[in-house]
């Protein structure tokens, strides 16, 4: 009888252990201290130290002479990396941001869990890498509800520019620019040095990098809106216009606030 009682107690014990044993055993992580870096995009218009770029304001494009009133400017930036002073790179995981000039919050890109240290450069992708154009349904900034995805010809609209212009025959312009493969590819890698400054990331602290963005570079090689006022497919026109902005000196280092 005693044996049975002992066995029974053992059995109960095991059942209890069964109930508790399936709990996820989260290993106590080694405390790695990190900080936050924000990349702040200040949009300017015209040459260096030009005026502020604003939506719903008439701006004159210096190369084409067009008067442009922008109603929309949205573009993707992705795959952020920071270069440490020892020359190695820290890669920010799952790094997709939609910059939308009508949404001030979107102009400050949050890079979290950045390892402590000193950094000298930032590297990122203008647009959305080809892999994320061909891998099915995505979330976050890449959600199709942002209306930056072509349903009928799969792929992200990486840069959307819309507005009103008297120089355009229709009175308006709309450029939806994308393309991620072969000759149509507009995805562009960009590296910006902090020009001798360095960014120190300290524990539980947010360090800020300020960059200047000049959307007037869109017309670096593209013609006046009197000639071309609409693009809605990947191809040579899209590439010319997108690369004017993505590939040139359209984004420059401004300053750091620690």
């Amino acid at each position, binding site marked *: 009888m005693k044996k049975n009682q002992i066995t029974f107690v053992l*059995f109960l014990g*095991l059942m209890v252990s*069964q109930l508790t044993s399936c709990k996820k055993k989260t290993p106590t992580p080694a405390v790695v201290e990190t900080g936050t870096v924000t990349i702040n995009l200040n949009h300017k218009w015209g040459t260096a130290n030009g005026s502020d770029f604003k939506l719903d304001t008439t701006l004159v494009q210096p190369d084409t002479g067009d008067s442009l009133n922008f109603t929309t400017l949205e573009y993707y930036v992705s795959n952020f990396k920071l270069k440490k002073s020892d020359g190695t790179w820290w890669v920010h995981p799952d790094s997709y941001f939609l910059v939308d000039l009508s949404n001030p919050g979107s102009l400050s890109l949050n890079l979290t869990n950045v390892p402590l240290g000193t950094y000298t450069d930032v590297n990122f992708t203008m647009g959305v890498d080809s892999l994320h154009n061909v891998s099915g*349904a995505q*979330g976050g900034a890449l959600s199709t509800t942002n209306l930056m995805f072509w*349903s*009928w010809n*799969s792929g992200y609209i990486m840069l959307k520019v819309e507005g009103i212009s008297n120089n355009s025959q229709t009175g308006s312009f709309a450029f939806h620019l994308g393309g991620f493969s072969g000759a149509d590819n507009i995805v562009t890698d960009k590296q910006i040095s902090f020009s001798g400054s360095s960014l120190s990331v300290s524990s539980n602290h947010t360090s800020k990098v300020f960059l200047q963005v000049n959307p007037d570079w869109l017309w670096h090689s593209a013609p006046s809106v009197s000639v071309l006022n609409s693009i809605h497919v990947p191809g040579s026109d899209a590439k010319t216009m997108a690369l004017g902005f993505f590939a040139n000196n359209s984004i420059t280092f401004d300053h750091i606030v620690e």
Partner: protein
Amino acid sequence: MKQIIFALILISAVVFNFVSCKKKDGNVSTYNATNWGFKIPANFPLPNYTFENNAQTIDRFGLGRLLFYDNILSLNNKISCSSCHAPDHAFSDHNVALSAGIGGVLGTRNAPSLSNLAWYPAFMWDGGVNHIEVQPMVPLTSPTEMNETMANILAKLNANTNYKNLFKKAYDVDVITDQVLLQALAQFTSMLISADSKYDQYIAGTASFTDAEKTGLDIFRNKCAGCHTEPLFTNFSYENIGLDMVSVDLGRQLITQNPLDRGKFRVPSLRNVAKTYPYMHDGRFFTLSQVLDHHINGALNNGITDSTLLQLTPLTSAEKLDIIQFLNTLTDIQFMVDPSLADPTH
């Protein structure tokens, strides 16, 4: 004796301890007990879709199935995916050339039969869609189809307690997003596998062909299989088959911008072809006989027309009948009546 029983209970409790901690979802093999899950048919190649980031589970499949048949996905809540992709028509429309969207608006292309989609490298007649998960965006948002916005669909689903619970169970999300909606639909559409026709049974050696069917298969392999390649009965290329001197529908050119792709459309699979009339991208032909007449003798040389097609030698009327006999063997009744693919609310 009692001790032995207790010892047995003890052992079984220990075993239970080990077994019960195994992951319960995200793995097809979990459902082997009920013989459910994505399986590659013996005569098929490896599929294109591998459920990456969308591991197959029966909850996700069931959710996708419910959505496929639910009118909630259309603007006026009156049509569903199944309105134009009905199971008893091998998931094509009800023998109409062009399908009616909400309010009866007609589209410009024939709603294709949906089968073996997990093997497709691209979707739509022009191949403009590059992934099974994002394909539903076209019919969901097209003004001539369901005419909805993704945002409004999500608002309706998030206001629906049943869907909230089902998405929570299937994807562990508190808010339904377009990502999980599209993934759930792919869980269902990837399971529309047609591989149990008489043809498949013949290949497997479990059914025999009549003489006419055998002759038909021989002629088919000789003249048609270059594009309608077994076992999927398409090579997924885009061809202009000389339907018109100048194609009104630009077809593949819409995607590539290349004028030499004008009027090119994806070579359609011929699985269940006898049940999926009318034919061609615009549904202009109602019988297989008409289609054969066009392919063998009727193609116009518009400068883009597939040269192989123009060089096909004529068929005797007996040969034509044999080919049709063979094409009838591609009908997969089991696929059309499969209860696991049917409307779950009926």
